[in-house]
């Protein structure tokens, strides 16, 4: 989302600077920074508090500024350009290395990836077949179990029905 504040950079910086100084001034004033409290060896605690408050105000102002900036059209465009350039650079490097390695008759990353892709395809097909086989076995076991149940209940109605091996495996 682009911010309208990006129109005039000078105005933007001066607004940020004024805001930040105002916030730091307020923080110092709130902490009651005494002007002549530094005569002793240890600074007055109020001085420390004021310095910390001003530091906090500075960090907060900067964080707010960065957050606004990182949402601006300027930043997003710059990010895109940087990324495009780094991708172009990466491609150029890759092309160069591939050409060099190919000339040297050595395998390149693409070859290894092709191999991995082939293996992955074999693996996927094996998994599919195992899944199908599992389903078939389950169906056969269920049918056998149902047959046994029917037989058992037919032979002796008082006996408890048996559980199929597949169901028995389930906890």
């Amino acid at each position: 989302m682009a911010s309208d504040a990006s129109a005039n950079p000078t105005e933007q910086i001066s607004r940020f600077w004024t805001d930040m100084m105002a916030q730091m001034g307020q923080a110092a004033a709130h902490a009651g920074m005494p002007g002549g409290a530094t005569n002793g060896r240890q600074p007055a605690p109020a001085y420390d508090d004021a310095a910390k408050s001003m530091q906090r105000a500075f960090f907060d102002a900067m964080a707010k500024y960065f957050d606004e900036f990182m949402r601006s059209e300027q930043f997003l465009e710059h990010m895109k350009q940087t990324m495009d350039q780094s991708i172009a650079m990466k491609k150029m490097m890759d092309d160069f290395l591939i050409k060099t390695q190919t000339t040297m008759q050595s395998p390149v990353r693409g070859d290894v990836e092709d191999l991995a892709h082939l293996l992955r395809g074999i693996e996927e097909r094996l998994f599919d077949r195992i899944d199908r086989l599992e389903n078939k076995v389950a169906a056969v076991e269920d049918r056998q179990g149902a047959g046994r149940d029917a037989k058992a209940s037919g032979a002796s109605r008082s006996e408890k029905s048996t559980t199929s091996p597949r169901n028995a495996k389930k906890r």
Partner: protein
Amino acid sequence: MTNATMSNPFMSMLPPTPAMFMPTFEGFVERMAAMPRVMETAGKVKVGATPHDVIYSEDKLRVLHYQSDIPKAHATPLVLCFALVNRPYILDLLPHKSVVRRFLDAGFDVFLVDWGEPSQNDRHLTIEHYVCRYMHNVMSRVAEFTEQEQVSLLGYCMGGTLSAMYTSLHPEMVKNLILMAAPVDWAERDALLVQWTDPKYYDVDAIIDAYGNAPPHVLQGAFALLKPMANFVEKYVGFYERMNDEKFVEEFTAMETWGNDNIPVAGETFRQFVKDCFQKNLLSQGKMKLGTKRIDLSNITCPVLNLMASNDHLVTCGQSAPFNDLVGSRDRKAITFRAGHIGLSVSSRAHKELWPNVCEWLGERSEKI
């Protein structure tokens, strides 16, 4: 004191008496003298130290089973699933900042999914591989190992999104679902990451086509840039100010170790996550597909606990909160805790106030031994 210094607080900083700078100088000398001790403490820090066995491994993935002297009180096991970005030991960072230990202390049988580091040959792994294959195998293995029919699942960050997807596809396997700072709805466009991944500026296809996997340095840089002052300035100022505190140094080093221990994300997974989630927001609309299977979050009917961090800059509450309205569960609860994205798992306050409540919630919904 002059009138000028009375009215203008900045004037009070001006008198440069030597006495004014002495304490600062002394503090500096003291810290420099402490350097060898700091280095020694930092060198001793051991992250992810809770004892564990590996009960299952597949490709790069490992499932860790944590050991504890505390007797088990709950039969239902708990599986922790972290994001594919960074390492999962953030959930077991240090003994006193370990979510794993909180659950062990509460009598749970705890397992953690370590996805491992994908290489270039894993660039083809999709979300379908992670959810339908790896996660299902992990859940089945844990169920078999513990002789339970169902398993409780806790997903953190992107791991929470994957856990939600898994639960919607296999509701029969999940006893309870806890999401922790997990994004499910990207309709709110205010979040910085959502703006950065806008298709107008972010060509995920070009990045993945060029790099194969999502490069870890790019991901880490982007995450750090979300809070530049906090990550590049305040953190080090804070370290300088507190480097005399041994416990602080230990925690700082542990966090830095984890923060810089980045791993790439499998290319196709990253591509799909950015496109379907960040750019098209398909998950919350029930339109996201893993292979041929459509993810319908209303299939989730188990008890749900949705943990959100109010100061989360990475996953805003607006991205997590809609989850409770999208599921079909009747027993659902949301907790918004005052912490950041990582603070949810490592802050002292979270370990004192949040995790005991989470353990209680889960304990009430788990099978007792």
